[in-house]
């Protein structure tokens, strides 16, 4: 067993990191992990943390390894945001932590999972810590690409690039780690385009599979202007329902817990001002989380939709590579029959534009309507 067992399809990156663990000359105080969503940036960072803290350099079995991997180790702190940004206050807390010496291990490790979501001020606060490193403190920043991180942070950290793992590697991981049977694992890995977390969800959650199936089927259903507008509304509804299902119970439980901690009477019709302000702060966070979740689900739907047109292009050009939507071959074949290669590229552009617009805060429904209008099939 090794601490690297869940870091799949990343031989080159793992070699770099192992060398840093063995050889002090190859070690540095700041690392930047980049790779497409689902490639396992935070998994790689945690494995690296474990290897640095393990007396055997990453056995995967000892207490140091296990606690570092699940981020319960006293010297490992993970900052992740479920909102849209990491605020300066959070960054400052982290910087304060970084100034302390490790409590039990060789290193203190600080992992920032969404370095691309640092606000400008939060990034500035981090930069100070990177410019004047504390001995034995190691920063690990994760982001989709180097361009997502401000240049001053980039230039002070060593870059580790993760690749998209192969479908087979992801399927193997699902079989080995999550006990998924092989055909399902293969379907899920392919449909998720090797996004590990998404593949896992598809393999284990029937609703996720149904949602994906519905989204893929849309590609053949939009012909009229009215159908385009309806399809856009459906996409938004699907995302909102999934977000509500994921957050409803959790939100209520968090609120009850907060009131309990504050010693407030949950049945009181109105709460005293200091409690009210804390409750509304929590509700604001929850809303931000729901917004991000809805957006993430929407984006996932658009990636799924995009894969249909890409598959159709593969069929049309006879490129012969495996289809992402092997399970929905009929849909892909139909799209490939009615759209020319050039029209397929335009459809892919329409989806890409919608993703960019939603990312730039355009009302999601409106962005999707414009997209769906561009996806209409000829009568």
């Amino acid at each position, binding site marked *: 067993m090794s601490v690297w067992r869940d870091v799949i399809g990343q031989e080159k990156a793992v070699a770099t990191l192992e060398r840093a663990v063995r050889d002090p000359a190859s070690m540095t105080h700041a690392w930047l992990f980049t790779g497409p969503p689902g490639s396992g940036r935070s998994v790689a960072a945690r494995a690296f943390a474990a290897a640095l803290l393990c007396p055997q350099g990453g056995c995967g079995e000892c207490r140091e390894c296990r606690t570092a991997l699940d981020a319960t180790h006293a010297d490992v702190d993970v900052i992740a945001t479920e909102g849209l940004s990491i605020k300066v206050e959070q960054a400052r807390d982290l910087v304060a932590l970084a100034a302390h010496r490790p409590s039990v291990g060789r290193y203190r490790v600080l992992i920032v999972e969404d370095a691309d979501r640092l606000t400008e001020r939060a990034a500035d606060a981090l930069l100070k810590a990177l410019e004047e490193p504390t001995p034995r403190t190691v920063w690990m920043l994760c982001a989709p690409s180097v361009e997502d991180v401000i240049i001053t942070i980039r230039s002070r950290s060593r870059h580790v690039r993760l690749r998209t793992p192969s479908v087979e590697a992801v399927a193997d991981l699902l079989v080995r780690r999550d006990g998924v049977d092989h055909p399902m694992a293969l379907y899920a890995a392919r449909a998720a385009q090797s996004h590990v977390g998404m593949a896992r969800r598809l393999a284990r959650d029937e609703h996720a599979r149904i949602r994906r199936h519905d989204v893929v089927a849309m590609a053949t259903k939009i012909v*009229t*202007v*009215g*159908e*385009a*507008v309806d399809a856009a509304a459906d996409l938004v509804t699907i995302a909102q329902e999934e977000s509500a299902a994921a957050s409803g119970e959790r939100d209520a439980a968090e609120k*009850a817990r907060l009131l309990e901690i504050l010693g407030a*009477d*949950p*049945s009181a*019709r109105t709460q005293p001002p200091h409690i009210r302000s804390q409750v509304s702060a929590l509700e604001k966070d929850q809303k931000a989380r729901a917004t991000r979740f809805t957006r993430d689900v929407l984006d996932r739907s658009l990636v799924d939709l995009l894969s249909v047109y890409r598959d159709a292009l593969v069929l049309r050009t006879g490129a012969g590579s495996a289809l992402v939507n092997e399970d929905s071959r009929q849909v892909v074949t139909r799209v490939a029959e009615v759209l020319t290669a050039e029209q397929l590229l335009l459809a892919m552009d329409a989806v890409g534009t919608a993703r960019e*617009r939603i990312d*730039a*805060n*355009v*009302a999601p429904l*409106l*962005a999707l*309507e*414009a997209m769906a*209008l*561009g996806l209409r099939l000829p009568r």
Partner: protein
Amino acid sequence: MAPMTEDLVAVAHGVPPYVLVSGPESVLAERGLAEVLDRLRVAEPGLEVIRLYAGTYEGGELVLHTSPSLFGGAKCVVVHDVDEASDELQADLLACITDPPEPDLTLVVLHKSGQRGKRVLDALRGARARVVDAPAIKTDRDKTDFAAHEFRRARRKATPEAVHALVEAVGKDVRELAAACQQLVDDTTGVIDENTVLTYHGGKVEATGFRVADAALSGDTAEALRLLRHAIGVGVDPVPIVAVLAQQVRQLIRVGSAGRGRSADIARDVGMAPWQVDRARRALAGWNGETLAVCLQALAAADAEVKGGGRDPVYAVERVVLTITRQHARHREG
């Protein structure tokens, strides 16, 4: 003299011993509850009101509160969120729905929606509880009905146009709509017409956006630009104007593709009010699917520009208004 029966007491204040407030709309539920309490207080000024919440209910509480108090006197026990009730609370509720009912006790149960607590609801109905409905107010049709009802309830006359204008101006939030109705009732006299509403709510961003949209969608370039420039001049943000334009174009597309059915049926299917359907149908005379599609796509681009993607948000919204009026003209030529 024979003791007064429960029915006679009920006649005195008009509230039976059991009341069920059923439905998710909190504005209506709160109002229903307040009316019940007011009526009870008319007969019993010293009424003791006890409120229990499903989320914090502890077994046996209900028994404690429903047993006759030492000093007599009327009591009203209000149980909130019975749609989230624990098995314990449900059992306790069932136990206190008795025949004959406990004297001097009124039990009010609030239930938003769903299957949980169904046995309690059945028992309440079996015990001839008064049911106060609080249905969701979601679509513009619901909101129109709600606002019209508000004015009727206050014995005020409001024209349909006034109700439409009000729903458009403040209809986003039911609570705000209720407050706006109340304000018009309190602050004005005589018939409430569209001008009355515009006096109070005409300055709202939505109202401005709607007037720009009306002009643009009827192809009136000069009027649309005049209204738009005026709005921008007094500091209205282009973002909500684009949102309203998009919403109006979307409604035209929905109604246009819904076919020839009755306005009321289409309204139900697409979640609009019948008058909105009628208005959309009139506006559709200048449009077809293709021209509306061009408008919606232009609006998506404009939304990106007014939200920071473009250098000049004001120019972006002017340009999209021009795109819309030109598409209208194109239809006429074609």
